[in-house]
């Protein structure tokens, strides 16, 4: 099963490479299906000694929600892609499958090198998805993405080197044990944190997200936003065992960063008009919240154990819903009633409507945060983020409504929305966290929605709009990073004197030397010199 999960995408990719994509296209959705099996079936391990430094793969408690997300979201997005992608199918399939192989390996790997390997492959292959459009905007977005992704990867690499120097290619599960007493964030830890933060779109490394999502095709955006970014989170969970110092300044800093991102990104999203850009900012915002959760899980072993299932639910909830929303942008230009409903369900879920998966996740998260002894204001602010989220989704709703066009409702959208509603609940039941919301909890979930609706409606009525400056900012940054081409440097050459004045002078000298009187004088001078030397010596 594991082998199938790993090799299927690769084999399909190879087939694409050989130009067989037309015949095998139908397998595209199936490529990620084995992941679902891995997520729900009992744990199993597979050792691949012959690969790299010897790989060990298999699902475990940490990765199961990730695998489930991957299996569902990727397959359905793939199905959608089958019909959605009309141009450059071969290229799309290839990168789609390569990205899938990468992320599969990253999710399944149980050793550091394997994880990194999958992660890097995924990161690079995703570039091809972002660039699918081949437009100038796509290229720009791709470039920014690539730079940041690489930056992240070398940071991870730097961190890995430091760990690798001590432990070699260590099994991920044993990192905590290996490290013994984890004493604060060491340099390696910082490197890894920052490295994975790129994928996680943590402020200020988020800039690729709002650039990349609008230009990528909808299914690609769906998995980018829904699944791929989660790989960063998994990286954190894998490589950063909980700190032993409790709520230390670094943890607090992460919390503040996450919260800032949650609000900042939502506000930025409001400045955009492109639905996918809005969704991208929403993702940044939601990832900020996940950072807060991760920070809380870093407080200690107990907190980690407590928060891990909650994070899992978050992952599933956000991944599926966000994927559904992205697909919706492709399927719902004209909002009929059914479509409106289909769009509203995931949107409301993300906004944290009680009884929705989002509501469940938020409630659980707030409980978890409180138990992790995070300061009360942090929990409050975390809750308040629903307000901006809701506003942002209103904005999206508004934008989508205004967009003319015609599209077919794809069954994958329906299924995805359905799964988004159901699967996180099921998973919560599975891990024993499912509970009906209490009334206060429900109110907590509902008022931000109402409030946000009010703001949004009034805002809309007055025709206000925030300036679109996020793109400009990215462009400026990009220009800063771009290296201007210049003339190649060269060290001074060794020149052989030939046509130069010195050479001619030497030839003249040689001519003078060959005159008989000069020879004679030289002869006599040497004679006297030799004589003198001999006389002095005697």
């Amino acid at each position, binding site marked *: 099963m594991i082998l199938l999960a790993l090799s299927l995408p690769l084999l399909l990719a190879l087939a694409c490479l050989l130009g067989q994509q037309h015949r095998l296209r139908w397998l595209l959705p199936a490529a990620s299906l084995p992941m679902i099996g891995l997520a729900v079936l009992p744990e199993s391990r597979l050792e691949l000694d*012959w690969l790299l*430094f010897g790989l060990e793969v298999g699902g475990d408690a940490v990765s199961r929600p990730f695998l489930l997300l991957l299996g569902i979201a990727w397959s359905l997005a793939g199905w959608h892609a089958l019909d959605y992608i009309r141009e450059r199918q071969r290229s799309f399939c290839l990168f789609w499958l390569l990205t899938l192989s990468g992320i599969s390996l990253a999710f399944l790997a149980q050793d550091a090198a394997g994880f990194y390997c999958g992660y890097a492959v995924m990161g690079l292959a995703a570039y091809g998805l972002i*660039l699918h459009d081949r437009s100038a905007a796509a290229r720009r977005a791709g470039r920014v993405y690539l730079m940041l992704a690489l930056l992240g990867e*070398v940071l991870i*690499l730097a961190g890995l080197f*430091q760990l690798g*120097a001590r432990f070699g*290619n260590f099994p991920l599960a044993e990192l905590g044990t290996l490290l013994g007493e984890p004493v604060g964030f060491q340099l390696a830890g910082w490197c890894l944190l920052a490295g994975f933060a790129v994928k996680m779109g943590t402020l200020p490394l988020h800039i690729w997200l709002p650039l990349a999502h609008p230009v990528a095709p909808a299914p690609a955006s769906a998995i980018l936003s829904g699944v791929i970014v989660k790989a960063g989170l998994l990286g954190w969970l894998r490589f950063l065992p909980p700190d032993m110092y409790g709520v230390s300044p670094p943890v607090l800093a992460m919390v503040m960063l996450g919260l800032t991102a949650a609000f900042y990104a939502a506000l930025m999203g409001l400045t955009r008009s492109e639905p996918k850009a809005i969704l991208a900012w929403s993702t940044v915002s939601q990832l900020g919240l996940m950072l807060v959760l991760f920070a809380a899980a870093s407080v200690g072993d107990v907190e980690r154990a407590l928060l891990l299932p909650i994070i899992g639910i978050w992952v599933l909830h956000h991944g599926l819903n966000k994927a559904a929303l992205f697909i919706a942008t492709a399927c719902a230009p004209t909002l009929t009633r059914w479509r409106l409903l289909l769009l509203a369900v995931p949107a409301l879920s993300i906004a944290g409507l009680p009884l929705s998966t989002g509501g469940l996740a938020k409630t659980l998260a707030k409980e978890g945060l409180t138990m992790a002894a995070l300061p009360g204001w942090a929990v409050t602010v975390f809750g308040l983020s629903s307000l901006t989220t809701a506003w942002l989704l209103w904005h999206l709703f508004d934008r989508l409504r205004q967009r003319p066009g015609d599209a077919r409702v794809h069954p994958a959208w329906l299924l995805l929305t359905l799964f988004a509603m159901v699967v996180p609940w099921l998973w919560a039941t599975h891990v024993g966290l499912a509970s009906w919301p209490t009334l206060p909890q429900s109110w907590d979930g509902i008022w931000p929605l109402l409030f946000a609706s009010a703001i949004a409606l009034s805002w809309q009525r007055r025709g206000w709009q925030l300036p679109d400056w996020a793109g400009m900012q990215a462009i400026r940054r990009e220009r800063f990073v771009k290296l201007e081409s210049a003339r*190649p440097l060269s060290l001074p050459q*060794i020149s052989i004197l030939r046509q130069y004045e010195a050479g001619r002078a030497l030839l003249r000298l040689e001519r003078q030397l060959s005159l008989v009187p000069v020879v004679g004088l030289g002869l006599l001078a040497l004679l006297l010199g030799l004589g003198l030397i001999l006389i002095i010596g005697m």
Partner: protein
Amino acid sequence: MSFGWQALPLYIILVSVVTGILVFMLGEQRQHTRTVLNLAGAILKLALILIMLLAIQAGTTFEFRLPLLPGLDLLLHADRLTMLFATLSALLWLVTTVYAIGYLEQSPNRARFFGFFSLCVAATMGVASAGNLFTFFIFYELLTLATWPLVVHRGTPEAFAAGRIYLAYTLAGGILLLVGLIWLHALAGAGDFILDGSLAPIASGNENALRAIFVLLMLGFGVKAALLPLHSWLPRAMVAPAPVSALLHAVAVVKAGAFGLVRLIQDVFGFQLAASLGLTDLLAWVAGVTIIYGSVLALKQSDLKRRLAYSTVSQVSYIALGVATGGVLATIGGLVHLVHQGLTKITLFFCAGNYAEAYGIHKVEDLDGLGECMPVTSVCFTIAALGMIGVPPMAGFITKWHLGAGAMAAGAPWVILILVASTLLNAAYFLPLLQRIWFRPLTEEIARRDDRLGRIRQVALIAPTVFVAVTALAAGLLAGIPGSPLFWVTRMVGAEGP
């Protein structure tokens, strides 16, 4: 002096020499005979090397000794390091020969080309199997001699300008090497590669002399290994045909320099002594600076082959860096990069050659959209470029992993900075190429051009390219299996795998 089975290294060298001489004697017109001869020579040589490899596994020792001067022997032997380099270069020679046959299909002076080509590889084998520095030097200089006609092969003024620079650098380097060698000879007396520790007894009191010798030898090897600031011949040598570039960068010349540095640290001084004299730090820093400098310059090149050349400047220094950093892991990283860089870089040059031959493309800007017209070549190029960057699971990653972890273990965390910066820079100059190849539309001008490769040439050019690309991929992907370069190197260094 025995000419029996023990002298197998000699025969391996002679295979190439004889091939070269026969090719010269065949003359220009006997194309088919020449092709057969070249391939037969390459295959025979590879077979002999494999036999030797097996025999060494079985514990046989190979040694050939011919006294040249009183107390100085021409000594050929085979140890594991030898085999690593020899196998690599023999394999790549075969591939490059096939490629060159296709590449030079129509061009003049092929007899000369292939003749020197064989001699060049003979010299490389000599460098690999040299049992003492004296022998090493002989073949090292022979390599210079045999390569020069290849560099100037086109016979254009630019080619000769490049050839002149090449000579100026390599011969000056050779002289420095010679001086260092003689100094060492005068100091330590005759000897085979003075193995680890045997210089130690004479070290006390001679520290500064030994330092000076090391620097001289380092400069001597550094010229071919394109260490800063001795590298600038390498990009200029790009005027040569693509197989020559492949040869320079992957099979022979640059490798010989790097190999020399490895021998210098590992066998001549021994890491302990070199480190205690502060010499490894020197080399490591020089290598580090070279890595960065080469990458930065590569960024600025608009000519594809020049960009690749600067990339070599940068990449080859990994070998020196690894060996100079010391410790098991870093040494493995350095040595294994000898192979990895060879495989990857040869792929890149083959691809560059294919582009140039098929569509006359030399500039980076002209690569747009070539993924469509030349998918196979482009895939190979992509694999190799990613390998260069060190994207897992490519070979470059294996190297970087060992280097990075080794540097940490050896207490040289600054190396990680170098690696990080270099990876970023590598990406910065390779990824735009990939972006152009795959994600840009084909320019109209190129689209109008016809594929100039004939059918036979297509096979002869693309088959080797695919082969090396697959090998490069496998070297990384399958690093864990017995027989992989990593496996060999690990056993050579005598350590458990990481």
